């Protein structure tokens, strides 16, 4: 385990290397210990997690536009990078919000910040693997595409694996309570998305109503 003195390294460079490389790899190798360190010893840093989030957004865009031609699914000229970035951000934020809103009700002890950090550290292997995906896609041909799909599958399996361990750790759940919280999170997610959609359509109605009102007033009095 990395010693505490390292995290309080003298120079900024040491600190960055510790937060971006050393600690996340420690999470990957010792997930149970590391996640409880996050909770009880205030390890890990929110700025690093925000950096990971940005990396994921950028890598998703790069996977759509800089992937090798052999594995290009969509014409890179028509890739909408804002949609991809918003998608990556929204799925994390929504999942964290849904999980937090559920676990608050079923006595999970994790805070919003801790859940967010779990989500980001769980996606740390994904960052490396999708980087690897982009590099390999320029070297491999269609016949070897199984290596690439394995790369992504591994990334998703890692996310599920580490996220589950992390959630159980920061909330102090048992295994079965953890499973239950995952299902409830899915339900909460559906509700949140439904409310968001309703909000969007309602605000559309409201805006068009104001537009009509404005037209009526303008046509009537001017």
């Amino acid at each position, binding site marked *: 385990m990395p010693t505490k003195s390292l995290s309080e390294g003298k120079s900024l460079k040491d600190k960055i290397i510790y937060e971006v490389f050393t600690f996340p790899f420690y999470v990957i190798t010792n997930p149970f210990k590391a996640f409880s360190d996050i909770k009880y010893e205030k390890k890990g840093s929110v700025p690093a997690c925000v950096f990971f989030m940005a990396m994921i957004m950028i890598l998703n865009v790069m996977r759509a536009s800089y992937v090798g*031609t052999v594995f290009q699914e969509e014409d890179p000229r028509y890739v909408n990078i804002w949609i991809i970035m918003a998608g990556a951000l929204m799925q994390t934020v929504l999942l964290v919000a849904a999980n937090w809103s559920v676990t608050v009700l079923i006595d999970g002890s994790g805070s919003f910040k801790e859940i967010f950090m779990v989500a980001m550290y769980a996606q740390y292997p994904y960052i490396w693997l999708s980087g690897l995906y982009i590099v390999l896609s320029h070297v491999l041909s269609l016949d070897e595409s199984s290596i690439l799909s394995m790369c992504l599958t591994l990334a998703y399996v890692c996310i599920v694996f580490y996220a589950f361990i992390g959630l159980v750790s920061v909330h102090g759940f048992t295994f079965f309570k953890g499973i239950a919280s995952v299902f409830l999170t899915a339900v909460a997610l559906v509700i949140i998305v439904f409310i968001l959609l309703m909000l969007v359509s309602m605000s559309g109605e409201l805006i068009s109503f104001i537009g009509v009102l404005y037209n009526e007033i303008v046509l009537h009095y001017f």
Partner: protein
Amino acid sequence: MRKRVLNHMLILLAGILVLLTPMTAFAESSSNYCFGSGAKDYKSAPVAYEVEKVYHARDIDGVDNLDNLSSMFVTDDAVYISTADSILILDYDFKLKHKLSEYTTLDGGSATLKNPDGIFVTDEGLIYVCEPSGEHILVFDSKYKLVASYGKPEGLDLDNRYQPAKIVVDSLDRMYVIATSVYEGILELSSDNKFQRYFGTTTVSVSPLEIFFRAIASEAQLSRQALLLPTEYSSMTVNDKGFIYTTIQSSDVEKPVRLLNVNGTDIMPENWQGNSPEGDEQFAGSGQYSGESTLTCIDCNEYGMYMVLDAKQNRIFTYDDSSNVLFVFGGRGDKDGCFLNPVSIRWMGGESNRVIVADRLSHSLTVMKPTNYASAIFEAVKYEAEGDREAAVPYWQKALDMNYNCNVAKDALGRELYWEGKYEESQELLGSILRTDYYSMAFEKTRESLIRAYAPGVVVGIVILIAAVQVFRRIRKLRKGGSDNAD
């Protein structure tokens, strides 16, 4: 006073707005476009077909009207056109050869054709004519004398009237008939008018949700719902190998253009992008002309090309035998080259690849000839159909020079470059249209040559590096040892 100023301001504003609005007329646009790499992607293309001449009744001697045009048939030297009261037989210069209107029935009486529809002329010169109102199919010989009249086929049970609309006859004189309100499929009739079977049967696809709602609906509700009927074929044509091309008018079928083999199964291929021929890939979402193409007529030629008529946008889509769109022409409107209500399209025989379009609403026949662009594509497809890919290359190149958006040409040229061993040029062309299967093959070759070129150097370099490091260490050790010795 203020009000007057305001009024003037408004008028000025309106004027500026009018001037700023782009003056593009979309209503009568011809359709010159081709499809790009994505489903949402379409690009402008050169004009493929231009009008050679529009024939009205007054332009053809001996013809007093072109009412109720419905079907056409083209042989090597004649054009057969069904109008309200006759079949017009014209030569390729649109001179009337014969007007088939009154005929002697088999029992000696005389009768007139009334709203004939589908026509088919066999190689022996027998003319098959569908007359839906008379509920029969008439067969004339090459002297225009009636030789047979086939009423309702033997062994066919129908709830309503038998109204044959389109007909195709194969080399064994079997008749394939599309009859109005027969939903089971195309009728296959033997040469002596016995019903054999339904050909190319279509199945209704019903979603589980629909089944559920139908199960809980009351009688009154059911009676107000539309019947779930299988799709009706709208036209057909046969190629020289005996395969039947058909179109389905309904827009909610997955594959509206079908190529039926002898068993009646659909063998129409998907193109390399995984699309089936269906007319427009992208369409307006609202308005009278929104939605998928409504395909009402099809014709094929001997090179495996076929064209379908979209009665919604009045466009004609031409495909090659791998279901790639080659070019689109036609359009909705009054001007020459656009149509009001096109009902039938046919290729004229011979080298010129001219097309006749029959327009029912404007009572006219439009003869269109391919431009240089379409001619180049025709030549290229012709050579490819003959198996001569090398001869097709200059024509594809010509088409690509005229239209850099021409994905079919890029695809063909890219694949040909691959077979010629020019892998990098091939990669450039195929990569630009994302044809990944061939691109990957070419990529493997370039990768291999790259490895062959650099691998020995890299390996030797690594060996030298390791050796150098070892030697360096030795020397340092020796020096250290030397200094040790010195001490």
